[in-house]
């Protein structure tokens, strides 16, 4: 490898001590190289060390700026690690038996040393992970990082989002209290509305016709074995694709279109702009990685392109620039989580009682939005069709955008930012109006007959109509395909967040609107 073998020349005491520890056969059989001290060894050590070799030797300076990634992917990686470690510790105490589960959780919170803290970390970490997945998805979307050749990695990301939800959901049942019992009852009944396979799917998930021992052991096995395994594999795949796709989108080389600019005699941008990205060295070229693109008017872009080319060229060695950021991200998220877990206890309500339904009975908070939708339309539409279509739309999203310009740039253009803000305002206003209207007046009280009107026709009509108006309203800005996608993605995120907030904080007994301070005890579904 060309790495210098360890050769120490002991001089003073500390050095002598270090030498004593490191200058022997055992140490060197484990750590084969000295601590890297030159640019060359800092580069060479990356592929030589198992735990580092997923990294490129150098990373683009643009791609590791805090304001580009906000560290969200790293946070998720470390949160998964924290969940794994605390989960293993919890599993030493917890037995998935309806007669024991609840008291085991109580034991954990009261008797086991650091048990309450571990449980809190596990619980809040899971919620934080769901939140961070959404923020990460937003970051990737608004920076246009899903564009070719990274489309499939976006799809993997959507699968990871679903897995995160599934992991959180299966863990939700395990404490076997009223909260978990009724949240799972309500949510699995939603699955029962899927056409044809719904009821058999529900029975397959629960292992019985109602939530009971069979469901508990099923959820436990999914939660501690199958889903974490799948997750680990997909995380590995996700990372691998980042490498093979040439690092983060912000490290993209300039598109070849600018070559056209040179040929046509426009101002010449920097000389070697067509080189493959540094971070992809040694990688097989991915189809599309250096894809041509239909370019914008050449002359207009030549000068900024030249400046951008220089900026994009600037790389830093992974050791220590990226590694130190990774360590900081890990420490930061751990600190946040531990502080939060010291401050707030994870909820544990009364022992699950299949004979008494909590009022209100809410799904876990990240599904409360579906439950909120459910109040306004047919259960199959709200619980099955809309989420299924949304997931498909999310997966298809990167394939709808062929334009490679502005990949790795927040909001792409000023137009993009304007459209995003407009779409957010538009959606908040309409969603609020519709929720309040349905509560105070009610679609059913105006057109209740036939049932298909308030259940299907009107909700679908309203959603399609509002989407169409959103599209028409941004037309004067001459939006690109990406900007149209931005309008709709923003609408999705805003509706999702708003329904979650309304369902969590504004729905009381009988799922009627209340002020957050008048929520009944147990009205929150965290």
């Amino acid at each position, binding site marked *: 490898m060309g790495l210098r073998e360890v050769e120490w020349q002991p001089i003073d005491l500390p050095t002598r001590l270090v030498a004593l520890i490191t200058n022997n056969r055992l140490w060197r059989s484990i750590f084969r190289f000295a601590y890297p001290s030159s640019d060359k060894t800092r580069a060479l050590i990356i592929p030589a060390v198992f735990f580092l070799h997923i990294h490129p030797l150098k990373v683009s300076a643009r791609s590791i700026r805090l304001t580009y990634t906000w560290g969200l992917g790293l946070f998720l990686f470390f949160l998964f690690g924290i969940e794994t470690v605390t989960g293993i510790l919890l599993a030493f105490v917890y037995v998935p038996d309806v007669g024991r589960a609840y008291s085991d959780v109580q034991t954990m919170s009261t008797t086991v040393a650091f048990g309450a803290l571990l449980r809190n970390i596990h619980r809040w970490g899971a919620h934080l992970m769901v939140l961070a997945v959404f923020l990460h998805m937003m970051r990737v979307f608004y920076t246009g990082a899903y564009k070719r050749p990274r489309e499939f990695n976006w799809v993997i990301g959507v699968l990871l989002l679903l897995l995160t939800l599934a992991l959180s959901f299966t863990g939700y049942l395990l404490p076997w209290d009223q909260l978990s019992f*009724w949240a799972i*009852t*309500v949510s*699995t*009944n*939603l699955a*029962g509305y899927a056409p044809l396979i719904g009821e058999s799917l529900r*029975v*397959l998930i*629960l*292992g*019985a*016709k*109602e939530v009971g021992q*069979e469901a508990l052991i*099923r959820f436990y096995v999914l939660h501690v074995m199958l889903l974490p395994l799948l997750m680990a594999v997909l995380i590995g795949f996700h990372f691998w694709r980042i490498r093979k796709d040439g690092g983060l989108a912000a490290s993209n080389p300039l598109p070849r279109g600018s070559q056209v600019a040179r040929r046509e005699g426009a101002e010449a941008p920097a000389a070697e702009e067509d080189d493959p990205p540094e971070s992809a060295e040694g990688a097989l070229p991915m189809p599309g990685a250096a894809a041509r693109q239909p370019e914008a008017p050449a002359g207009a872009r030549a000068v900024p392109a030249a400046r951008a080319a220089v900026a994009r060229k600037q790389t830093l060695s992974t050791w220590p620039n990226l590694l130190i950021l990774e360590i900081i991200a890990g420490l930061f998220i751990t600190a946040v989580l531990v502080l939060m877990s010291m401050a707030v206890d994870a909820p544990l309500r009364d022992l699950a009682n*299949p*004979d*008494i*339904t*909590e*009022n*209100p*009975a809410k799904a876990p908070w990240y599904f409360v939005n579906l439950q909120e939708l*459910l*109040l306004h339309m*047919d*259960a199959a539409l709200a619980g099955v069709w809309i989420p299924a279509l949304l997931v498909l739309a999310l997966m298809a999203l990167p394939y709808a955008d062929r334009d490679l310009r502005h990949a790795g740039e927040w909001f792409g253009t000023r137009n993009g930012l304007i459209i995003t803000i407009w779409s957010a305002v538009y959606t908040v206003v309409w969603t609020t109006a519709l929720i309040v209207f349905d509560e105070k007046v009610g679609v059913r009280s105006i057109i209740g007959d036939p049932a298909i009107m308030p259940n299907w026709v009107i909700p679908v009509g309203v959603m399609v109509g509002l989407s169409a108006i959103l599209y028409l309203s941004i037309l004067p800005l001459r939006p690109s395909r990406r900007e149209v996608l931005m309008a709709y993605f923003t609408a999705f995120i805003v509706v999702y967040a708003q329904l979650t907030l309304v369902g969590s904080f504004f729905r009381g*007994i*009988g*799922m009627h609107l209340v002020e957050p301070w008048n929520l009944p005890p147990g009205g929150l579904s965290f």
Partner: protein
Amino acid sequence: MAREETQGRGFLSKLDRRSFMAYGLWAAAIALIVEGGVISVQAIRALPKTAAFGSKFEAGKVGDFEEGSITYFLDGRFYISRLPGGLLALYRKCTHLGCVVPWRPDEQSEDNLAGSGRFNCPCHGSRFDRYGTVKGGPAPRPLDIFPIKIDGDKVIVDTGTITTRGSYDESQLTKV
């Protein structure tokens, strides 16, 4: 093109030993995955219950039930509704999202069998009458029912068989 003309006599003529083995290997691999999937799903299917809810349940004697009355069987998770002409075993689970529907004897009746008493779902406000039919709220269909058998004068409810229905009609009654 010439090659295609001499050899292009369908799939079988091109199937030499090598490609036969190759196809066989692929077929075996696909079969293995399919079998693995089928076995996995079969192995985790819900098992029939032998005791408690999910089995046959004795709900007392025919004479115990007064006309217009609703009797709750907690362990069996059903209500016996004594209607004119017969019995109905109503599953207590709301057909909307599965909450337990409690009987409210003091609330305004939704049928003409008595002045008061109806089922109120706490989750999304569905209401049902003594026939189990929906009188309000988002529930999509009447409360599900269990088949009843009369053995001598004993009322036997089979909680392993859940019958869904679109509306009430008299054939659902078990005559007594």
